[in-house]
């Protein structure tokens, strides 16, 4: 056990050296770390949101809304196609998760089934093999009634696309906030995990993500005024009642048909009204949208139209002259910040479906800094206390163990920096716990050596058998803890996962330093000595 070949010694020293190199950047602040020589790694410890402050939001794409929107579109296609085929129908509508219609004439049932089945567009289920699946399931439930449902494959496909699209739009919106290194990841089937470090105002982030931001331009219905509709007047079938965002909310009756869709916007920015100086949002359409906007405004000079965002009227100006240049401005009750947020939302585009916030965890930068300070102080004091205790317990061997302990810390920091694993507050606790447990391996070995000496063995033999006999126990004991760490890693999230990472890394490095490195130190100390009279241990 005490013999080390030259290559082995070299390998051990190389591991320690690498650990030191990778942990060095943490001694420098962010600016001076770049002044280090070229060959040095530059990665520092990656602090978790609980240590550097920041927001963690778990969002979910509302699947029901996606289904509902598809079914609403399907409904208008059904109306159109049945009418074109001259098939009489009634009781058409959307229920829960299917669309339903009753065919009046029993002799047209087969024809109706054909027409309805044609609505289904094939969807690609596998990009490589080109396999496709049906999108819609048409079910004949008797009495002339058909129920049409999205197939499981179609639903999955739609959710997948919506989540991907949502991630892209969430990313664009967050990028506009100008924060550093936001992380936006998909989780499970319909969830999105957003982590934004060092954000001053998480409320603004939530406000930005909480809006679908579907903006459309509608003409107002001229037959019924908003107040009449609120008073009970019938709203025509092609129109609907919506309210403004102001309080008290003002009612408007708008035509359901979209005049120009917000999807045609290419740019939006904050501007100021040249007369009043009030903030406004300036926007520009693409060429198609611009042309459409020009045509509609030309035909409706003198009439009001409404700019509707997520079913709320932002403003309802009167068209004074045709707007032909493809650009326009929205004036409303804006502050500079709300105007800016609207511009951000319009530039980033609309979400395919609303996002709901399932979980929020925000740590302010102050608390994060306090935690780093408290964690560091606790680690250092715990570390020193353990070292003193070990030194007075095992004398020279205690010194070896302490050197190993310091190297262990360096290795943990080095490995964490290398892997860019996230260090959280429980993670710091994991490191402190590792300090306590790392010496366990040394304690096992040293106690065993003491025992062997008591049993009358000579010093070198006792050292040798102390190391070899303790090895099995050390491995068994550490593997059980490693199992716990692994389970925590797979099942935990956020800070708990950070704990699992440091605990796991700490176990591996501590077995290396406490067993191999101290053994090397002992071997080098007693090398060439045939007889060692007495051990201080």
């Amino acid at each position, binding site marked *: 056990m005490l013999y080390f070949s030259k290559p082995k010694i070299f390998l051990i020293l190389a591991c320690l050296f690498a650990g030191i190199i990778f942990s060095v950047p943490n001694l420098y602040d962010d600016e001076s770390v770049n002044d280090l020589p070229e060959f040095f790694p530059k990665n520092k410890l990656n602090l978790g949101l609980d240590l550097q402050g920041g927001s963690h939001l778990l969002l979910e794409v509302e699947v029901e809304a996606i289904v509902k929107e598809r079914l609403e579109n399907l409904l208008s296609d059904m109306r159109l196609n049945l009418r074109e085929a001259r098939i009489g129908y009634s009781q058409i509508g959307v229920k829960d998760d299917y669309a339903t219609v009753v065919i009046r004439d029993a002799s047209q049932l087969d024809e109706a089934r054909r027409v309805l089945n044609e609505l289904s567009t094939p969807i690609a289920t596998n990009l490589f093999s080109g396999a496709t699946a049906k999108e819609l399931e048409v079910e004949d439930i008797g009495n002339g009634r058909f129920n049409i449902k999205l197939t499981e494959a179609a639903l999955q496909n739609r959710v997948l696309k919506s989540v991907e699209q949502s991630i892209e739009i969430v990313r664009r919106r967050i990028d506009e906030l100008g924060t550093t290194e936001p992380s936006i990841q998909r989780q499970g089937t319909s969830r999105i995990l957003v982590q934004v470090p060092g954000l001053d105002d998480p409320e603004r982030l939530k406000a930005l993500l909480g809006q679908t931001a579907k903006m459309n331009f509608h003409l107002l219905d001229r037959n019924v005024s908003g107040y009449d509709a609120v008073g009970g007047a019938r709203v025509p079938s092609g129109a609907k009642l919506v309210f403004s965002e102001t309080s008290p909310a003002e009612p408007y009756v708008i035509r359901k048909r979209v005049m120009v869709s917000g999807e045609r916007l290419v740019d939006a920015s904050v501007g100021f009204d040249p007369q009043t100086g009030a903030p406004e949002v300036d926007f520009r359409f693409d060429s198609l949208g611009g042309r459409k906007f020009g045509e509609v405004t030309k035909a409706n000079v003198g009439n009001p139209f409404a700019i509707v965002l997520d079913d709320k009227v932002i403003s309802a100006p009167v068209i004074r002259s045709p707007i032909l240049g493809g650009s326009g401005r929205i004036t409303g009750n804006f502050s500079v910040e709300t105007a800016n947020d609207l511009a951000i939302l319009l530039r980033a585009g609309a979400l395919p479906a609303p996002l709901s916030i399932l979980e929020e965890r925000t740590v302010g930068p102050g608390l994060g800094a306090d935690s780093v300070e408290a964690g560091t102080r606790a680690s250092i*004091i715990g570390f020193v206390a353990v070292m003193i205790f070990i030194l007075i317990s095992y004398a020279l061997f205690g010194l070896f163990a302490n050197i190993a302990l310091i190297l262990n810390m360096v290795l943990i920091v080095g490995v964490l920096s290398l892997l860019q694993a996230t260090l959280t507050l429980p993670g710091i606790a994991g490191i402190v716990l590792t300090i306590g447990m790392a010496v366990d391996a040394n304690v096992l070995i040293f106690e065993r050596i003491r025992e062997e000496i008591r049993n009358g063995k000579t010093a070198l033999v006792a050292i040798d058998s102390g190391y070899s006999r303790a090895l099995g126990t050390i491995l068994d004991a550490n593997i059980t803890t490693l199992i716990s760490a692994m389970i925590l890693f797979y099942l935990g999230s956020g800070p708990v996962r950070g704990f699992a990472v440091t605990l796991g890394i700490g176990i591996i490095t501590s077995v290396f330093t406490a067993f191999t490195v101290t053994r090397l130190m002992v071997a080098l100390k007693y090398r060439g000595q045939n007889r060692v009279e007495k051990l201080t241990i």
Partner: protein
Amino acid sequence: MRTLKLVPAETKIDFIRLHIASFIVSLFLVAASLGLFFTQGLNFGIDFKGGTLIEIGTNGPANIGDLRDVIGKLDLGEVQIQEFGSPDDVLIRVGEKVDATDNADNLSAVDKIRNALPQDVTFRRVEVVGPQISGELVQAGFLAVTVAIGLMLFYIWLRFEWQFSVGAVLALIHDIILTIGVFCLIQIEFNLSIIAAILTIVGYSMNDTVVVYDRVRENLRRFKKMPLSELANMSINSTLSRTVMTSVTTLLALFSLYILGGEVIRGFTMAMIWGVFVGTYSSIFIAAPVLMYLGVKRDWSEAAKD
């Protein structure tokens, strides 16, 4: 040079003779823990119950009474307000509203509180957990602990014999139940990080048990005719100084965390300190004596060969 020895070089304490007494004490404590769990219950944090947690910092010592008045007027349902670590640090907990079907309610609770409090209050931490997520976290936590116990059972069975794995797992379950009992008793918030602490206790307790078992196995090979109780006693005694040393170093590190590591992880470190005590106790007084009742294979000559 003399070195410090917490435990004399050779002890001959008859641990096994004490096992009846320790079994009775353990059974009583387990029963009391279960009783507390079913009567008093755990003080579940928002991770498992859903709801909102806000930590605020005030300029100068906070007036909890005033805060209660201001926030009580908001009609947020169940609200707890308490000092958190220092006089200018306050924790506000808002329970999940019973009729809340979606998350909008909780988010607006944060907004309402923000608007009601003076401008100079800083929001140090805000956590909102919806009912769907809290349900999943309960499941994941339960699963983690169960899987951990299962894997330990398997590992010990693989490395030793089935009797050892039963003994180790009995000790493990004992430790977990007592930890939960303590959390019921002192009503410290039980949250996700406590699950992490419990899993660490599982690891630590196993670690301790394995060290004793390793020695038992070694002695089984060396002293084929020695009565099991004597053999167990000898094994515990010869590993005793290691057991004490490791517990002391781990406790030194943990106490430093408990005192200096800040309020946020105090519950977590408290659980682990408790775990070190019960983990050490259970490997000596439960895991080892259980072997005598289950009986172990005495002839290890086959195993000794490989």
